[in-house]
């Protein structure tokens, strides 16, 4: 199996605070990795380091075969990142927003409808400005915006937050399908009940490093 993420002794610093303190991690293609840990353990920073948004101060890091110390921008267009924030333009209509996100990663805007249907976003709200949606509906638009770009690596920070049980199950199904078609998924989550069964591996972080790894044997 080919490694999608390969980190060795990675240290990352945000401002003057060490967010990753010598982290080792290898994630293979098709894995669904569940990252857990207390607040401030470095989970979000791990995702951002994988996305190339924060620079690696020391250690070896490669994502999708690109050396992150050489060019951390290179793998970005193949990565779908969903952070705490939804990355939504409040004043844009739902379908226009998803179309924009699709076009901005070079995907077809015509896939918008399929993506919105996949996250079960009610059709009567497609032309409503995002600002007037509920938190759960916004999360769905955010997921659809990600889905439409068909990323090879999904980095999700609390993707289930604000979603109801039905929508969570649906999201799990989407993730399983993506993983089956070759995508790799890393998601951070505090709550495991619904999601535990989909993760092929669970790691626990503390103090900017991995302290437990279910895949390590």
């Amino acid at each position: 199996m080919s490694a999608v993420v390969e980190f060795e002794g990675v240290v990352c610093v945000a401002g003057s605070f060490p967010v990753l303190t010598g982290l080792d991690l290898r994630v293979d293609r098709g894995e669904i990795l569940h990252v857990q840990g207390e607040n401030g353990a470095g989970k979000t920073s791990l995702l951002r380091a994988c996305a190339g948004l924060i620079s690696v101060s020391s250690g070896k890091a490669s994502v999708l075969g690109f050396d992150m110390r050489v060019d951390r921008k290179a793998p970005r267009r193949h990565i779908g990142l969903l952070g705490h924030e939804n990355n939504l333009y409040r004043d844009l209509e739902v379908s226009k927003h998803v179309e924009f996100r699709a076009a901005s990663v070079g995907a077809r805007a015509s896939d918008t409808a399929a993506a919105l249907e996949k996250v079960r976003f009610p059709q009567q709200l497609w032309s409503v400005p995002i600002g007037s949606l509920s938190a759960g509906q916004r999360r769905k638009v955010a997921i659809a915006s990600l889905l439409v770009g068909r990323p090879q690596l999904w980095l999700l920070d609390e993707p289930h937050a604000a979603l109801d049980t039905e929508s969570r199950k649906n999201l799990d199904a989407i993730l399983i399908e993506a993983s089956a078609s070759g995508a790799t998924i890393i998601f951070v989550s505090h709550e495991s009940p619904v999601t535990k069964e989909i993760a092929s591996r669970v790691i626990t972080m503390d103090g900017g490093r991995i302290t437990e790894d279910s895949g390590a044997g």
Partner: protein
Amino acid sequence: MLAEIFLVARKDLRVERRAKIALGQVAPLALLILMVFAFALDANTSLLERGAGGLYWLAVLYGGTLLIQRSFDVETDDGNMDALRMSAIGMPSLFLGKALALFVQITVLELILGPGILLLYNVGVVDWVLLIAAAIAGTVAFSVCGVLWGAMSAGLRVRATLLPLLLVPVLAPVLLAGSRAFETALGVRAGAGWTWAGLMFVIAAVHTALGLGAFGFLLEEG
């Protein structure tokens, strides 16, 4: 690249059309400023007439600064900048796209301010071609510089004060050239109106070249 530029510009304009910040708030405010200038100069018609060009560009500067701020607040809001960084849109395209959207918005602002000075300050146009050329040149320069310095202060806590501090010295030559060119076009001063308009085009070109090269540095984090 052209497709990316239009993609970004269309998105910005669509956001603006929904939010109506430029038309609903900035334009009325700029008009109000034209009126307040009249109070400050005690409605001295000859002074207002001579100063019309300069006051026009000052009002554009004020409204433009607000629009520039807004253009980047939209991106830093809800983490949208992250999505742009993760997208396939090249930084030069993002730069030109945002500048194009800003150009359209400032043009709309000017279409409201223009009649404003003609009516309120009692001035007439003697050279329409020069007036329009100067307006376009100045607006291009404003948009390009605005996007550069807007990105410079984007996402910082003190951006509301930092942006004007950094922007005004850079735009000082544009204000100067715009005022002089307008004075010629409005017939209050004979002079090299066309050379001033040309100067604004040169400023716009220089900043476009710089922006194409440097914009990516401004928006990267970490």
